[in-house]
């Protein structure tokens, strides 16, 4: 049991939190990159 805990950690599972965090990171980075693209300076005609 102790060995199992050492391999998997005291907190069991938690993948839903991990995926939420990574998904949110990727989403936020993509959205911010998009906002910069939309605001990019354009040359005067």
């Amino acid at each position, binding site marked *: 049991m102790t060995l199992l*805990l*050492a*391999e*998997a*950690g*005291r*907190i*069991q*599972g*938690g*993948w839903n*939190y*991990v995926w*939420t*965090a*990574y998904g*949110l*990171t*990727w989403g*936020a*980075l993509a959205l*911010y*990159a998009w906002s*910069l693209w939309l*605001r*990019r*300076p354009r040359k*005067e005609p």
Partner: protein
Amino acid sequence: MTHALFTVVGLVVVGGGLYLLVRGPASLRAGVAVLGLVLLISGAWYGLSVAPPDREMGNVQRIMYVHVPAQWMALMAVTLNFFCSVAYLFRPGWAKDALAEASAEVGLFFGAVGLVLGSIWGKPTWGVYWSWDPRLTSEAILLVAYAGYLALRRFIDDAERRAVWSAVVGIIIAVDIPIIWFSVRWWRSLHQMQSSPSTVDPDMVRALRWNAFAFLALWLVFLSSRYLIARARTQREVAPPPLAAEVAT
């Protein structure tokens, strides 16, 4: 000695990279963005499948590979904002003002992402999404202050007055930066202290550094792109384009 050397090399790489991205063609920024994306995807693979679970936190610890780099990028950006603000007051220049604006927004972005990620990590680890811990509170204050800083920049129409006022506000806000960094040592509260690479699994250190480089590449692209937006706006304000009637005559 090694730390000092790494710091100097890091500053040269970051400063030089930023200079090249601002002065160079758009294709260079696109190239660094692609590099950042490749590092981000491969870093996620390493952090999610190669690095081992933590002895105490299990798989939830993997959130650190994105939370910590996000906070590092935020602190780097706001520190840059402080130096730009001081430099502007000593010797005014539109480039410094534009870089201050860019670093404030990029710092606010990464700080907000880092705070939310920390909150997601906090629920399974601490049992709560939020605690009025000194580290979390000082970070939240910083984000609110930078939101105010950016709002202030929008309210002031005169470019010169805006630059001076925001430089002063930027310096005042910066008082919070060392408080955030040292809060975990001064108050020894719920938030853990900075860990050392010598006390964790080498695969964990590798995953963290891999993701940190991915974030750094994106940080450089975001900062240089936002700088160009701010610079273009100031140029329009300070030297407005001639009227159509003037061009015709």
